[in-house]
């Protein structure tokens, strides 16, 4: 394969469509309908509990940070607030965007809008980009949410831990959307009926940032920005840490989530921040299952999946060397063993279509 072109308007995306890799039928583990129906059931209670805890903690930590400002004693509170603002917002954006967090639609919508603002994503655009990520997960030229492109750009990955590339990409686009309109790339995956929403959301977000900045200038202090905006940088590390593990070092251009996604066992605090998306193979295979039912889904299908990584550290230990090898060889990826109880990978399809050679 020649060098990958990740642009949505480029030749790789066109090729994926031509060879039937785009919008393909993906592998699914067989789950009895009755079991799946139970797993898919929606409920408001778990997400209400988690949302009250999340917003309650954010208010408490921010209040403590403000009260102790500018003393060094405020730092731990800002760190805690930042990770909830800059990282938990990513998982809330994700789950509420799927509509699976709450049973009640307006609750999903409220949490989705707040989380989108905090994580600096236009709520109207990103709803559609994420749909594409599910249709064409890690299909080069089709998936707009590929976090680690090949060869991996390590400097950029490291800067992502403090939000730099995302923030740099976000503000020019925000201004473009607010004053010029919908970007041509966005037009490839957002239906025309939604374009006015993109502009409206951009204008509201921009107004909030301008007001915050004006307050900071008036106060001659960065304190307002510590509450709104900057936590997307100083608190992003957790969602980048967990997000890179989702697909990093694994296959691209395949149609079996067991080959391109990673499930990692995590500690309870990370699972709260990440809203159980550590069960990532399960989530991609069955996006209808709410976050609170993912551990049960995992138990139901783990016989058919590669062994989960035992911890965040172990998963990084597996992923990082693979990324380094991708620096030398773009084609390299980790192919994890399946247990004897699993249905085998159908590599014939992927290799036949792509002329690719997986690593052992």
């Amino acid at each position, binding site marked *: 394969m020649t060098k990958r072109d990740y642009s949505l308007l480029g030749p790789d995306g066109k090729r994926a469509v031509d060879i039937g890799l785009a919008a393909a039928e993906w592998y699914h583990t067989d789950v009895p309908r009755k079991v799946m129906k139970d797993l898919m059931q929606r409920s408001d209670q778990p997400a209400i509990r988690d949302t009250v805890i999340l917003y309650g903690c954010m208010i408490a930590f921010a209040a403590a940070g403000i009260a102790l400002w500018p003393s060094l004693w405020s730092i731990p509170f800002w760190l805690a607030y930042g990770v909830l603002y800059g990282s938990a917002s990513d998982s809330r954006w994700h789950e509420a965007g799927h509509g699976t967090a709450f049973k009640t639609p307006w609750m999903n919508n409220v949490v989705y809008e707040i989380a989108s603002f905090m994580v600096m994503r236009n709520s109207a655009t990103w*709803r559609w980009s994420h749909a594409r990520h599910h249709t064409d997960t890690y299909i080069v030229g089709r998936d707009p949410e590929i976090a680690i492109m090949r060869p991996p750009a390590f400097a950029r990955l490291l800067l992502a831990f403090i939000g730099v590339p995302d923030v740099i990409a976000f503000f020019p686009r925000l201004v473009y959307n607010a004053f010029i309109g919908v970007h041509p790339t966005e037009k490839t995956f957002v239906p025309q009926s939604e374009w006015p929403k993109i502009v409206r959301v951009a204008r509201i977000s921009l107004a909030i940032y301008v007001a915050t900045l004006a307050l900071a200038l008036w106060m001659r202090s960065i304190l307002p920005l510590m509450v709104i905006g900057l936590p997307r940088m100083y608190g992003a590390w957790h969602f980048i840490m967990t997000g890179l593990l989702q697909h990093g070092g694994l296959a691209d251009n395949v149609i079996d989530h067991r080959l391109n996604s990673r499930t990692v066992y995590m500690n309870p605090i990370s699972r709260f921040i990440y809203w159980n998306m550590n069960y990532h193979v399960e989530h991609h295979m069955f996006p209808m299952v709410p976050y609170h039912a993912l551990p049960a889904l995992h138990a139901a299908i783990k016989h058919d999946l590669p062994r989960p990584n035992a911890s965040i550290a172990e998963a990084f230990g597996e992923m990082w060397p693979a990324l380094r090898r991708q620096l030398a060889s773009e084609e390299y990826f980790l192919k994890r063993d399946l247990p004897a109880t699993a249905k085998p990978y159908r590599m014939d399809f992927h290799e036949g279509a792509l002329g690719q050679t997986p690593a052992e």
Partner: protein
Amino acid sequence: MPWIDACATTDIDAEDLIRFDHAGATYAIYHSPDGQFYATAGKCTHEDVHLSDGLVMDHLIECPKHNGQFDYRTGEAKRAPVCINLKTFKTKVEGARVYIEVS
């Protein structure tokens, strides 16, 4: 328009659906919580995905791929990313069988 014998009333649990293929076309047949039967096109209008793996909640069917929703009584698209309504078909129950009128 011909009426097609699609399934037994007991083939579909209440608040659930099944897939029904006939003459090269695919349909979804629903059993609503209030005991009625409905039929729609079998695939989502967003992408080429069978709705039969989706979730019925009251009178909504949620697509298994991106969680788009339709009211299966009218076919109305209710939740992004679906924007195009779903085609619906008339149903009737005779004896213990569900019939759909295909066009």
